[in-house]
């Protein structure tokens, strides 16, 4: 493959944001070089490619960097039109998918992170909010699927599927660490069956870190948020720090 066509992904093994891009690349069958970043000791290249946010994931295509996972996914879909589409064709359906993807990112993920990084009354409040948002998503899915059974496989996963499994692919680890069951089949039957189906897709399965490692990640995030320590290891935005960086990828 010509050098100019090369695709590189700067990532970090525990990052769900990076996972999104990896899933998309694999669904499309796009070969890429993966560069693992130590987020406490970021490479010069990363800082050069993403000077604004200094974060992963960064996709580099034809030497040009693209940042922010959703922007990257749309770029992938528009650039590699031969693989399975990541968005529907119809503009209205596209709008619905984008709306719910934004919802998963802003309303769900942020509040789940809040549950992870808080305790006591603050955590109870955050849990309540997550359940409210899950209820809205469950309702939204009824409208989105419109009564059809939504069969998922590696051929028809789209950006909403990808965002959802990057958040709740780890739901069992979240349950173990937080003692809260978000993906509850009784409360949210559509969502639960969808998440379960997503985690069974070969591409997703292959990219998912083992349960034990995910438990460690969540425990670590929680511990660091609740006990800012004297050793100077901070919990930053996106919350992946020194010990996680040194862990070997799965």
């Amino acid at each position, binding site marked *: 493959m010509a050098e100019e066509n090369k695709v590189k992904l700067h990532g970090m093994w525990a990052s769900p944001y990076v996972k999104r891009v990896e899933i998309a690349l694999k669904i499309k069958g796009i070969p890429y070089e993966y560069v693992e970043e130590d987020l406490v000791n970021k490479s010069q290249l990363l800082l050069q490619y993403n000077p*604004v946010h200094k974060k992963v994931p960064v996709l580099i*295509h034809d030497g*040009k960097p*693209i*940042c*922010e996972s*959703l*922007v*990257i996914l*749309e*770029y992938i879909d*528009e*650039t590699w039109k031969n693989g399975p589409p990541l968005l529907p064709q119809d*503009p*209205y359906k*596209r*709008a619905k998918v*984008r*709306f719910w993807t*934004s*919802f998963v990112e802003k309303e769900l993920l942020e509040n789940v992170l809040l549950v992870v990084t808080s305790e006591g009354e603050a955590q109870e409040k955050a849990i309540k909010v997550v359940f409210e948002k899950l209820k*809205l998503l469950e*309702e*939204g899915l009824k409208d989105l699927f419109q009564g059809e059974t939504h069969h998922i496989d590696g051929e028809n996963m789209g950006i909403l599927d990808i965002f959802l499994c990057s958040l709740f692919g780890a739901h069992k680890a979240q349950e173990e660490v937080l003692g809260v069951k978000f993906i509850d089949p009784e409360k949210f039957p559509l969502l639960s069956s969808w998440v379960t189906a997503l985690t069974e897709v070969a591409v997703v399965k292959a990219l998912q870190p083992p349960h034990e490692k995910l438990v460690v990640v969540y425990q670590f995030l929680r511990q660091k948020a609740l006990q800012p320590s004297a050793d100077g290891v901070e919990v930053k935005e996106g919350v992946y720090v020194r010990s996680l960086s040194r862990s070997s990828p799965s």
Partner: protein
Amino acid sequence: MAEEEVKLFGTWASPFSRRIEVALKLKGVQFEYIEEDLTNKSPALLNYNPVNKQIPVLVHNGKPVAESLVIMEYIDETWKHNPILPVDPYERAMARFWAKYIDEKFWPAARKSVVAKGEEQKGEIDEIQQQMKNLEGELKEKKFFGGESLGFLDIAANIIIWLVVAQEALGMDQILNEEKLPVLYGWLQRLLDDAVFNECVPPKDRHLDLFKVRFGSSIASK
């Protein structure tokens, strides 16, 4: 062609609502505008956007679309003439990246900068200064972010006006001044001069008054 019904639920002072007005006007799409009272939201709005219960909401032939950037993409994909987004996927990615940046970084900082005090306020203002410098890096020598004419990012970035007016209303120093941010300042003047955009800008006095009422008391002791 079938009769098209396009409705926009918005508020006159909302920069998010303004994005949709501008996009529709640039495309020459006829629409009915419905002004919402956010303290007393209409049943129609709550019906069309039960999830967020927010404006703007675009309703196209009875089908609602919410979230301003999502609506803008929908508009561009539905009415394909006078495109708002560039053709090239990389350019599109840049426009989306910076629009997201504005919503996720600039907007929270802008809101905080107006109500914060002392050191905290200074911190927000310094951050906004840097954000605007970053935006200048994207604009470079171009007339607009979209090139010769208004594009996706110009429309999204109209939210900068919110801060400009807020600072004027509250007697604060302007972050966006010609000396420190000449590139972005020039862009803003061109934006305000644009015939289509101009139609969508609220009357200055009314806009200033709104900020004085909303934020005036919080800066009483400065």
